[in-house]
């Protein structure tokens, strides 16, 4: 069982884990992900590999707590194990010399765009990074992104830091200014990826997005991760997760992501209750 060697809280509800897995550490390429399961009754869910250290034999994942599974992972501490940890899955992001590229990350997507940006820089591209978060305290990996890019633009939705607004505004400015952009890579909330795709469609700037549909096995066996790209059904876990943004049916993705909304609520409520009981128990233990 892979052991957690480091844990760090990057922002409220966003945690970084460094996990021992020498094989994945050696193999993984930017854009790939792992699927994990925290305990026997838990779900299998995907997380992007944000970084790896082949020498130390570790991989880094960054998780945003949005529901039960991600919260259960969030409770894990350094020294503990993760029950199942499989990867590296998915096709790597094609790293080539494109020329001038823009790497856009939103929210926890910043952690996912980071390995892509640094690989692109290493491959000799001129990399402009645009990262964003709802508010300043949710911004992660600013320093790391600064290292990985030649230029970095930071945005916050509420204007508490950097450019006031969405990541699309600096991109729009660049396009309107007539900057040469040979390729855009974008990872973040679906609505953000769709907005970016709409911006680059007119000027026909090749744009890749990393899709995040619900997955189960991650090996092309179940088809849970179906997405429509260019009118054709693809399995995101094996055909992606990167796809041509201008061909993706984002509406379908949004709908499919809501398939288990009711169940997710039930699950989360149950979990909170359990957590509540645990808190009561541990405070009783302290009191005793």
């Amino acid at each position: 069982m892979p052991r957690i060697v480091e844990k760090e809280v990057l922002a409220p509800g966003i945690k970084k884990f460094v996990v021992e897995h020498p094989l994945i550490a050696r193999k993984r390429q930017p854009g790939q992900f792992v699927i994990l399961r925290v305990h026997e009754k838990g779900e299998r869910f995907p997380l992007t590999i944000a970084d790896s250290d082949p020498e130390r034999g570790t991989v880094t994942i960054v998780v945003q707590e949005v529901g039960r599974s991600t919260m259960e992972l969030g409770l894990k501490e350094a020294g503990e194990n993760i029950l199942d940890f499989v990867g590296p899955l998915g096709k790597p992001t094609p790293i080539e010399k494109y020329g001038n590229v823009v790497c856009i990350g939103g929210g926890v997507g910043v952690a996912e765009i980071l390995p892509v940006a640094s690989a692109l820089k290493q491959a000799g591209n001129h990399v402009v990074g645009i990262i964003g978060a709802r508010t300043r305290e949710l911004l992660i990996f600013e320093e790391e992104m600064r290292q990985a890019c030649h230029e970095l633009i930071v945005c916050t939705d509420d204007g508490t830091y950097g450019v006031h607004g969405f990541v699309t505004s600096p991109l729009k400015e660049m396009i309107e200014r007539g900057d040469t952009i040979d390729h855009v890579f974008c990872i973040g909330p679906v609505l953000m990826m769709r907005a970016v795709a709409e911006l680059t469609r007119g000027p026909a700037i090749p744009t890749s997005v990393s899709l995040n549909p619900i997955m189960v096995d991650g090996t092309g066996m179940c088809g849970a991760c179906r997405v429509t790209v260019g009118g054709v059904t693809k399995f995101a876990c094996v055909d992606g997760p990167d796809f041509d943004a201008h061909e993706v049916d984002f509406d379908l993705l949004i709908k499919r992501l809501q398939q288990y909304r009711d169940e997710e609520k039930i699950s989360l409520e149950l979990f909170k209750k359990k957590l509540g009981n645990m808190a009561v128990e541990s405070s009783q233990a302290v009191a005793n």
Partner: protein
Amino acid sequence: MAKIIPEKTPMAEQDPKERIRNFNEVPFGYTEKEAILEAQRCLQCPKPYCVDGCPVNIDIPGFIRLVAEGDFLGAARKIKETNLLPAVCGRVCPQEEQCEAMCVLSKKFEPVAIGRLERFVADYERQAGKAEKPAIPRPTGHRIAVVGAGPAGLTVAADLIQKGHDVTVFEALHALGGVLVYGIPEFRLPKSILQHEVNYLASLGVDFEPSFVVGKTETVDELLEKYDALFLGVGAGLPYFMRIPGENLNGVYSANEYLTRSNLMRGYLFPEWDTPIKRGKNVAVIGGGNTAMDAVRTALRLGAENAYLIYRRSRKEMPARLEEIHHAEQEGVQFRLLENPVRIIGDENGWVKEIELISMQLGEPDESGRRRPIPIPGSEHTLKVDTVVVAIGQGANPLLISATPGLKTNRWGYLEIDPATGLTSRERVFAGGDIVRGGATVILAMGDGRRAATAIHEMLR
């Protein structure tokens, strides 16, 4: 000679009204008395055709005689000479097409219930806790990697560990057993049986590496540097869809996803287990094989008021095991035969609300020898459903093959092998089971595993 009893000794099973509310196994299995009674029906033919009908040629009269004599453990040993997983095969083999189809009794009467006897014997041995461990010879120093922990891979592992080789099984999922653990439901094959068999192999010294995707975590070529031989038993785990409009609507599943959520991830125990599955009220399952039958019976157990099985041919052509078709009928599955989906219709939120079907008629026989279904123009009609499960078959998953240069495949994407040995187009790489045959059966996969294990052992000598 005693008078022939024309019918099989019945096997008690859960009442259909009860069992559609639980996931417990449907048949209870024979008692000792019933097993002996049934064993006595066997004529002990000097030329036992039943043996020819069994893909691994179990000494059927041999084990049945031991059952008749009350030596159940002896019978178990006899079966295990050729079949590693009798508790599984006794439950899931299509006996009516294999051993029992060839039983002489079946010409005039019901055949001997070979499958039920096999199951009884295996269960008896397991419950008695008396499975004998074979003596393992001195280590040969040879290392073999088995890819995929389905019936094919498990058989290879069992055979080669008993020859003194070092065996490691790599499995993509977190659980071992292949389709037996992710596909076939608990009510047909309890997980505990499989767990018992896997534990047994581990106790013989087989190493298991779950959560390891060959082609991703490491490639075939990397494994070949560390192992003397590889066996690829990766199954046919690529779900086919129908390519009709509406297939990506919410509430449309592949059978693989539906069954994986329910079985492997215990979705039927949600929210105690965390993986959800839609509990549809009106569920349509498309297909007529074992997979379709498992899915539609799962839908009933998840609370469906109407569980439809939509199949484009007639009942006679259904490839599912007879017993399961019968069970499905008893449980209230509504068979919609000679009907085929044209499109799936969604509501404004992207959820399935109806399925449009077209009626079919049977024409001339096709390549498979079954009469070809032909749509009847103008016969389109709709059915109200909230869940659709597509169970029209599966193909070769390209993940491992595309990551392995030099592996020859046929035009359907399945691996080409030397039928005598299981050797692929790559040196030291063998294969068998569904990745070679396409969706076949458990016992055929195990037969392939045995043949490849023999060839691997020969090669290493």
